[in-house]
């Protein structure tokens, strides 16, 4: 193993982490402000990817598709909030889990209804095609660097939004005291819809970005959703900072585990078996990490004030 390869894998882990952060940020924001657990977040990710693929195919431009993904996911989020989610804030987590589980079924089947059963085509825009040579001589795909950059921009943007703007102030107020924010005269219903749509747009953005790299198909959001849950649980539910660090931790752990574990097992076992056992342990690794973290810190690394 060379330093260049290790560096490349680290970048890969970073990129996965950034992508997870886009998902986890929305989830944790929605939980932090409204106390709502949203299983259908992965469906919004899917909506973003499908909107981007469909619009990109129609207009021929990935960038218009990307904008469409933001709009579509935010709109879907706002509609869902208005029709369904709004009735769930006062319910217990059980009801929230169930209702959003039901939404997953509806979104998945509905998307298949609209777009059919075959995966859609979505390509990387020409501007970001190909690979660049990194210092050290490794080639690395431009698009993955772009995802890392986009994630960093979103993270900074979110930080600015929450710490510097009026909306952010209301969000913070909502996180610390739900009754007080009502007393402050903020229209809490609108605030909730806006926050939910914002979280949805982030998920849709992630879906569109990743859709170009993977396959745009029904059910694509579910594996990401579960990873995002692992992220926010590790980070501390409700904490954006926790989501960022949790996402990077999960991304790097997962990538490095898949890369290193088979090699470690190769010291004890023949290559084919080492590959299988290493692969098996690698697929469980992040859950093991999560269990260890929660055994030590039951409320995650950065516990939010309530939850």
């Amino acid at each position, binding site marked *: 193993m060379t330093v260049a390869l290790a560096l490349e894998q680290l970048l890969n882990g970073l990129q996965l982490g950034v992508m997870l952060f886009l998902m986890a940020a929305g989830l944790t924001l929605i939980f932090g402000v409204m106390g709502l657990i949203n299983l259908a977040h992965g469906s919004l990710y899917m909506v973003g990817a499908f909107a981007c693929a469909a619009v990109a195919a129609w207009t021929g431009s990935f960038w218009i598709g990307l904008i469409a993904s933001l709009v579509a996911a935010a709109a879907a989020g706002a509609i869902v909030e208005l029709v369904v989610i709004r009735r769930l804030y006062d319910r217990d987590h059980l009801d929230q889990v169930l209702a959003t589980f*039901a939404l997953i079924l509806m979104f998945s089947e509905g998307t298949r209804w609209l777009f059919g059963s075959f995966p859609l085509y979505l390509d990387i825009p020409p501007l970001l095609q190909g690979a660049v040579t990194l210092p050290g001589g490794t080639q690395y795909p431009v698009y993955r660097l772009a995802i890392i950059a986009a994630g960093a921009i979103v993270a900074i943007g979110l930080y600015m939004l929450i710490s510097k703007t009026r909306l952010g102030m209301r969000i913070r107020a909502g996180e610390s005291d739900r009754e007080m924010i009502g007393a402050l005269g903020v229209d809490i219903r609108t605030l909730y819809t806006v926050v939910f749509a914002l979280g949805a747009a982030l998920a849709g953005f992630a879906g569109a970005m990743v859709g170009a790299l993977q396959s745009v198909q029904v059910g694509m959001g579910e594996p990401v959703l579960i990873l995002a849950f692992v992220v926010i649980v590790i980070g501390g539910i409700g904490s954006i900072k926790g989501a960022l660090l949790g996402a990077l931790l999960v991304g790097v752990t997962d990538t490095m585990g898949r890369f290193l574990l088979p090699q470690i097992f190769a010291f004890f076992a023949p290559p084919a078996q080492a590959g299988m056992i290493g692969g098996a342990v690698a697929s469980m690794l992040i859950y093991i990490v999560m269990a260890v973290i929660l055994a030590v810190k039951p409320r995650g690394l950065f516990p939010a004030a309530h939850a």
Partner: protein
Amino acid sequence: MNRENLVNFILAVLLLAVPFAANMAGQPFYVTLATRVAILALAATGLNLALGLGGLVSFGHAAFFGIGGYVAGILATHSFSGEPLLFGLSGTNQMWVIWIVAVLLAGLLGLAIGAISLRTSGVYFIMITLAFAQMVYYFAVSWPAYGGEDGLSILVRNQFPGVMTMRPLGFFLICYVVLLVGIGLFALIRASRFGNALQAARQNEVRVATVGIQPYRIRLTGFAISAMMTGLAGALFADLNRFVSPSMLSWHMSGELIVLIVLGGTGRLFGPLAGAALYVAFEYALGGITERWQFFLGLILLVVVLFARGGLLGLLAGKARHG
């Protein structure tokens, strides 16, 4: 007999009557459907102990369901092939033995998962149980010895003294009796001193601690018992399908078990049975009408959660009562 008991009684009789009628009408498939209802109801009754009585929203009970299934599959495979299993012990095709092993292993797994998960609460608990189940799921998928993703076939259904288990009706009766025993146990536990403490811990954790009972121990015990019952259902489910695969461990399965309970009525004695019957009927009837049945299943579920919170039993038998 109050109204809820009457509804419960009718449900129990109906579940018994439908397979006999179907058998006589030469429609043995409905016997299979009824068996499925009974097994799912048993699994959900197990979950109901944790969720309904203890307020522990476990989103990972598929792990126990699947463990039970794999116990049945693995023991049967070894019995069939004659290869020793562990420490020279051989497999078995006797349901009795399989059940005991399934219950014990599921209980142990429940203790292990519960010991860590119960340190958390609320959303954390939901998520961490989900994550543990995913861990078991990925283990099953990538462990090559017992079929991995492909699963494990049981060529001939396991045996039970005095019953022709390959006959749909014979196997149904076994499952039916086990379900009734499971529901009976649930009723006993709910009314017992332990049930007192478990339910009190759901209503008011501080109160339980203040009288000197550690909620953690009570919950851990409840969680393990719950895992055992769900594990037993898993073993039966494997025998019903003569097949076990990681899909029994998937998070959709965990979700479905919760759905069954809520459809029927959370914490109600016959809630899981009512929910399972309703769910299987939905699946069957909707599937006959449209290829998009999952969409409508979601819609119905949503409506139940939003507007009919007591579930089916809430509609039929009114509000739940507590002694």
